[in-house]
């Protein structure tokens, strides 16, 4: 078990007791999060961020996009990126505005991108991204044709330089605020599915698979 930050920029400096560096715990947050915020430095030297879907295989994180995407053209050539992942577990209500906070789990990943070009790896990653969203889906949906694969760019980054920050529990307030006549506590939050909507063009009698009707994030 690793309890040390891999590099200075992944060391949690602010509230260092919230820093989490164990690989399994960091991976679990990455897997539970449906999407990530991917940032890089634009040609003009200014920061860029986009939301995108990721998937993890072992110690590698993958993202993808269309060949036509300016983002993918910008990041595929071995550039430094930063990825932020956020799960909000609850709102922490303190008696004072200042001590309000969230119960959250976040991960930040730093690394250098590498384009995926190996055909077998591309096929595996396509399945992994599909299954990241709905586990089991890749076995059901038609897989990409070679032509479709050629239209998509996949980029990977090693999960070598990453850390998590986990905040949980009740508000901690100075003694003189505890007497205030204000409610304090936690309001838990979670993401749940609603009722699935059939595609209007769906063939009659196509059943809804269990990974749709029983959808939930891994680890929840």
């Amino acid at each position, binding site marked *: 078990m690793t309890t040390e930050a891999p590099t200075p*920029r992944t060391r949690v*400096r*602010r509230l260092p007791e919230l820093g989490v560096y164990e690989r399994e715990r960091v991976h679990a947050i990455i897997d539970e999060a449906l*999407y990530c*915020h991917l*940032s*890089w*430095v*634009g040609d003009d*030297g*200014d*920061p*860029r*961020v*986009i*939301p995108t879907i990721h998937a993890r295989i072992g110690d590698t994180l993958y993202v993808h996009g269309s060949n*036509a995407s*300016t983002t993918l053209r910008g990041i595929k050539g071995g550039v*430094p990126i*930063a990825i*932020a992942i*956020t799960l*909000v577990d609850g709102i922490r*209500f303190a*008696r*004072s*505005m*200042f001590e*309000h906070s969230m119960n959250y789990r*976040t991960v*930040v990943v730093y690394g250098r991108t590498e384009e995926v070009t190996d055909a077998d790896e591309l096929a595996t990653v*396509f399945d992994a991204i*599909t299954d990241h969203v*709905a586990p089991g889906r890749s076995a*059901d*949906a*038609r897989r*990409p044709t070679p032509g*479709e694969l050629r*239209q*998509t760019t996949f980029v990977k980054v090693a999960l070598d330089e990453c850390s998590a920050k986990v905040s949980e529990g*009740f508000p901690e307030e100075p003694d003189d605020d*505890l007497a205030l006549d*204000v*409610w304090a*506590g*936690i*309001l*838990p*939050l*979670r*993401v*749940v*599915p609603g009722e*699935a*909507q*059939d*595609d209007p063009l769906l063939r009659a009698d*196509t059943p*809804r698979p269990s990974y749709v009707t029983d959808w939930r994030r891994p680890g929840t």
Partner: protein
Amino acid sequence: MPEPTSDRTRVHRHPERGDHDLTIVHRILDEALTCTVAWVDPQGGPRALPTIQARIDDTLYLHGSRAARAWKAVAAGAEVCVVATLIDALVLARTSPHHSMNYRSAVVYGRARTVADPSELVSAARAITRHVLPGREEDAAEPRDKDWLETLILAMPIAEASAKVRTGPPVDDEADLALDVWAGTLPLQTVVGEPTPAPDLRAGIAVPEYLKGYRRP
């Protein structure tokens, strides 16, 4: 539809999903509980930090610890990029390449200024509290002067910004419609559990009305 305010806010990929109407950007920034702030560090590398935002009219407020190196860089006038994302539904097509999400995302570019004016500091603190839960700003104790020694409030204009929105069912190729695979959307929403009082809560303080039936604006 309004034109993009700059080339970098132009939605290149799926331009039909792009929207430069700032009222849509505002709505996304208001509904999303958190955002990610990105900037470029002195070594030229990208940095990203999740945080909470709040909006008053055309101004986006961010806050953080004065001790945090991240916020020092942003307070010093580094160019920043803020993104907020809402996932409305999973979009499951018959073919894996056509899978998608129904989402709403907003990106804001600019530089932040450090808020120093005492009345703006209080309005920003109230706005951030209200962003998390409307009504709470009337209830919770306002920051004391000494709190501002620890906390930095930053303001950036919501001027160079754009939104990207996808809605609707999956879009498969005609030839794939006959496949024997379920297709459709699975809506997602954030729901609340039971409010859990702090163990040191004084007796006789009821759960406030604004906590019941909580939902994002």
